[in-house]
């Protein structure tokens, strides 16, 4: 288990960042927050690129910085690599030479350049000028280059933000593949919770320079649902149900994929062939995409109907004008979040412990890691 102990603060003119948290880095850990939340600052501090920090960072029992002891490891000696949002490839070098630059300075030299070219699907571009390739390709080169330093920790700072949806999905899949094959712990910064919940096991949520939440991706997102209701100023995410469910069937014969939720099932539009039966699928359903029925719906085109019990009803605490409530419903031990108007809640007289049916279309079950 890789451990990262963060205990430092950092001050700029109008921005204060403080963190005191021990992270267990397994797989991909997400760092989520809006711009100005301190996500990039956190990564830069870990990488050693932030000069004005005070406090300590300890990575796997190795102190990277401890300002109390006046100790700091130089960024080039931390064995941590950061992939920047803007690629930062060396414009005077070709793709291959950019990669060689990293490989030449790597102490271990276990990874072969050709293997990494293959893994990142860059073989055809090896001799290209880095100014003449697309932004998606540039990010792949930046990723490949970072991998060739054989980092003990890989930091990704919004690597997808400049890409179109298709390139995003492709790169996201590549990041998962890299993590699985090379087994490098990754800290992945993003302002998109959708992106993070597709790939992260754990997530650290930052807001205005402070840690809001840290933990399992699904649980943390569900916590954020409540935070959105309680503090409307902190509209961190779209309220949603975040799920990992096993695939019962990749195609039910009618173009729908079937997921198992204990004795119930969830249908969604069929995904490309990369998925297999029993594999866990990460998906999410926006709270505004689910509706509630008191009786089992008959004669409806809406394919997903789950029976459950209301666990909690939370109305927006501060902002009366929204006239909406967030209802938590337990279906087969899984929490679902439903966002409805106060009007509907009163009309149906919804109350805690009441048995209800949830309804949502197949298309409301979203995933984009395909």
């Amino acid at each position, binding site marked *: 288990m890789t451990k990262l102990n963060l205990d430092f603060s950092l001050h700029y003119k109008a921005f204060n960042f403080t963190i005191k948290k021990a992270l267990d880095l397994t797989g991909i850990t997400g760092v989520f927050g809006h711009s100005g939340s301190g996500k990039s600052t956190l990564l830069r501090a870990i990488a050693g*690129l932030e000069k004005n920090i005070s406090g300590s960072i300890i990575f796997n029992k190795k102190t990277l910085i401890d300002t109390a002891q006046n100790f700091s490891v130089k*960024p*080039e000696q931390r064995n941590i690599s950061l992939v920047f949002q*803007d690629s930062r490839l*060396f414009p005077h070098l070709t793709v291959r030479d950019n990669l060689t*630059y990293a490989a030449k*300075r790597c*102490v271990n030299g276990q990874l072969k350049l050709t293997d990494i070219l293959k893994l990142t699907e860059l073989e055809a571009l090896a001799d290209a000028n880095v100014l003449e390739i697309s932004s998606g390709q540039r990010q792949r080169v930046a990723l490949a280059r970072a991998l060739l*330093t054989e980092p003990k920790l890989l930091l990704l700072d919004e690597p997808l933000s400049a890409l179109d949806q298709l390139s995003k999905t492709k790169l996201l899949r590549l990041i998962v593949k890299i993590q699985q094959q090379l087994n490098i712990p990754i800290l992945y910064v993003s302002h998109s919770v959708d992106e993070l919940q597709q790939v992260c096991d754990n997530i650290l949520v930052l807001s205005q320079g402070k840690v809001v939440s840290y933990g399992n991706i699904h649980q943390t997102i569900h916590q954020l649902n409540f935070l959105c209701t309680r503090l409307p100023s902190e509209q961190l995410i779209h309220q949603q149900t975040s799920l990992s469910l096993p695939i019962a069937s990749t195609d039910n014969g009618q173009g729908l994929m079937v997921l198992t939720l204990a004795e119930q099932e969830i249908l969604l539009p069929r995904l490309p062939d990369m998925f297999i039966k029993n594999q866990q699928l990460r998906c999410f359903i926006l709270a505004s995409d689910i509706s509630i029925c008191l009786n089992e719906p008959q004669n409806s085109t809406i394919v997903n109907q789950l029976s459950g019990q209301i666990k909690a009803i939370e109305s927006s605490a501060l902002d009366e004008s929204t006239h909406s409530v967030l209802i938590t419903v337990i279906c087969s031990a899984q929490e679902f979040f439903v966002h409805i108007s106060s009007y509907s809640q009163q009309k149906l007289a919804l109350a805690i412990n009441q048995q209800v049916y949830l309804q949502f279309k197949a298309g409301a079950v979203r995933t984009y890691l395909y």
Partner: protein
Amino acid sequence: MPSPDLLALAVTLKMAALTTLILLLIGTPLAWFLAKMTNRFKVIIEAIVALPLVLPPTVLGFYLLIAFSPQHLPGKIWQQATGQQLAFSFSAIVIGSVLYSLPFVVQPLQKAFEQLGDSLLEAGAMLGAGPIDRFFTIVLPLTKTSFITAASLGFAHTVGEFGVILMIGGNIPGETRVLSIALFDHVEAFDYAKAHVLAISLLIGSMILLASVYLLNLPRRITKKMS
């Protein structure tokens, strides 16, 4: 025995080459320091570096003459260390030229370093490159044209120097008598034919050097405009 004018040419080239070399060695770290500096002392140092651009060369020459004389500390130290007088020596005109041409080397380099910024250097650090490594593998290749420009301007400006050398170097053949001073001598002696030869050579030489510098900078400016 070469002609006096050829000797003056040799002294000029030797002085300009040595000056350019010294300027690159001290101008590069100075330009780097200025490019990375953020506090208010930056403007003061920048102003000092730029002074030779506006100051009459005779002002600089006058103060250097005083400093280089054996009665004053710099001149005294030099005399004790080398056994020779600093004023009216080849070393004196090289030191004078270094100060006089400093802005022509520091300014283009500083501008190039500022434009390059920190982002690629941070990327280099993330790939395990230390500061010296980063300078030679990232900064130098990406600011190559600015280095050539700086060196050419420094060289050309040193060749064209007159006032400072006249003040601190005098007119010693083979030691401090450079082309510009030889030209002045010919004019004073009403030998306009010889003066013409030197004047036109300096004009053409400087023209070629400057045209090459602008040619070198041309593609970059055009590509920038296009993007």
